[in-house]
């Protein structure tokens, strides 16, 4: 954890909303993240067709799901293509895609230990949009006036290679849904 925070490079929006807001930031090829105000934050790219809500409106704790399925626990606020289907892994971008410099964060409960983890959703950038495993869960997601928890925007926005490719979900700490 010290290693992570040592590398933390805050990209502050310059504005306080409900306290402070912070964007996740990635330096070089190592990642670190950020968060916003209270509870977790979300927002990445977007989808739409995955509107089958047979499993309910949110993706809570489905222990049997794997990381190539939308209902996998880490994806509770992920809106985009799973990098696990695109040549990456649950927390690694595909070989040729740049990690987004800014991210949004969600708080998802891991059914294996019943703990809530803070998840950083990094978009992977600079390659044609992957087009596979489009997922869309929105636990505590909010519109762009809570930018750090907004997942209907291209989070490759701060990368020079700005094209959206896919999204990873990395654990960055323990979280709390705040209720």
């Amino acid at each position, binding site marked *: 954890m010290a290693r992570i925070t040592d590398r933390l490079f805050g990209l502050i929006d310059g504005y306080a909303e409900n306290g402070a807001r912070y964007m996740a930031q990635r330096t070089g090829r190592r990642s670190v993240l950020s968060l916003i105000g209270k509870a977790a934050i979300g927002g990445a790219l977007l989808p*739409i067709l995955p509107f089958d809500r047979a499993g309910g*409106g949110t993706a809570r704790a489905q222990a049997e799901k794997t990381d190539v399925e939308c209902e996998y626990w880490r994806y509770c606020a992920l809106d985009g293509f799973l990098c696990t289907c695109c040549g990456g892994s649950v927390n690694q971008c595909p070989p040729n895609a740049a990690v987004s410099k800014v991210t949004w964060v969600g708080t998802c409960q891991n059914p294996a230990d019943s703990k809530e983890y803070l998840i950083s959703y990094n978009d992977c950038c600079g390659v044609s*949009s992957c087009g596979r495993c489009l997922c869309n869960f929105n*636990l505590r997601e909010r519109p762009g006036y809570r930018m750090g928890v907004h997942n209907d925007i291209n989070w490759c926005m701060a990368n020079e290679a700005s094209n959206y490719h896919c999204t990873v979900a990395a654990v960055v700490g323990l979280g709390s849904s705040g209720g």
Partner: protein
Amino acid sequence: MRSALLGLSFISLLASAAFAQDEIQPETVGNLTIPRGTEIVFSVDLALNHVVDGRVYALNSKDLKLLGIIGTGSLGMVHVPQGTSDIYVATSHLSRTTRGTRSDFVEIYSGEDLTFKEEIPISNNRAQALNYRSLIWTSSDLKYLFIQNATPATSVTVVDMLAKTQVADIPNPGCYGIFPASKTPTRFATTCGDGTFGTINVTADGSAEMRASEPIFDADKDALFSGAYRWGENWVFTSYAGNIYVVDVEGETAKLVDKIAVSEGVEGNWRPGGYQPITVRNDTGMAYLLMHSNGTEGSHKNPAEEIWAVDLKTKKVVGRAASVPGIALSASQGDAPALFVIDGLKAEIVRYDLPAAGQAFALTPGVAASGGALPDQVEVR
């Protein structure tokens, strides 16, 4: 005729046959035209699988037959203003399609034949977002076009559409979305994460300050959706928990005019959902909402099971009807009132005819047609 053909000796095939009256006569290839006055439905397609190649599908509102396609680049935002037949797109192009340098533009397309007319360079900080209609809007006099930016710091680009140039980039930190005033063309409001509305007046030199309203909503407990609809001089929002907020943005600061609890006391925990969950018929003051049952935290993008009609004047739900799994809708404002709904599962546009003013609410299912690969905004003009 035969000799004319023989004169072109290389047309060996035609040379041997003159045309008789009962044969199909030779045809020339040109362009089909769109009849003047055609009411057009615009299905804005994100095309996420090929996100650099977004489109607008222009459909005849009557039969939803495709009239033509407009390319909208990478996550282009689309505005179909009243008062002009043009269509405005704020978008990005990369120098090597999916890589290379990003360049942003406002592009103007003709609403009469869908042709490209003109482009205006803008700064490269606009929000590359899903097609929320509130991220691009004209001033009430059509002089300015306002475009929401996010880097992720938020600001609003102001384009002078007469001078064809960007004139300002006004910070709206912690806020998002553009809701222009009606009487004061230089004024627009924006929704903020602290529950206030900011009001911004664009000055001639491009400077501006944002004035916060009193708290109007609670972004934690009852967040406003971005996809609001204009009703006369007010803007009508709906919220995650199922309320309608009527907001007056005409003054120096915005004011809450009405708050209508739509699903209070109704069994099933019904909530609004989708990307553009509310529309309003301007003449009747009737709002239509995309509603899903068993709403929970995080269900706010669930597709609709029903469409509810809410009379903004009497503040009452006047009807409910089954719906396709809608994620966005728009009401036509013309003489043949209808709703156009995006079916989020089939990526189709569905037409529902509305009863005439004064008649009891009902939805009459009409035609349905493809809205593209991943449509997320629908407009009708």
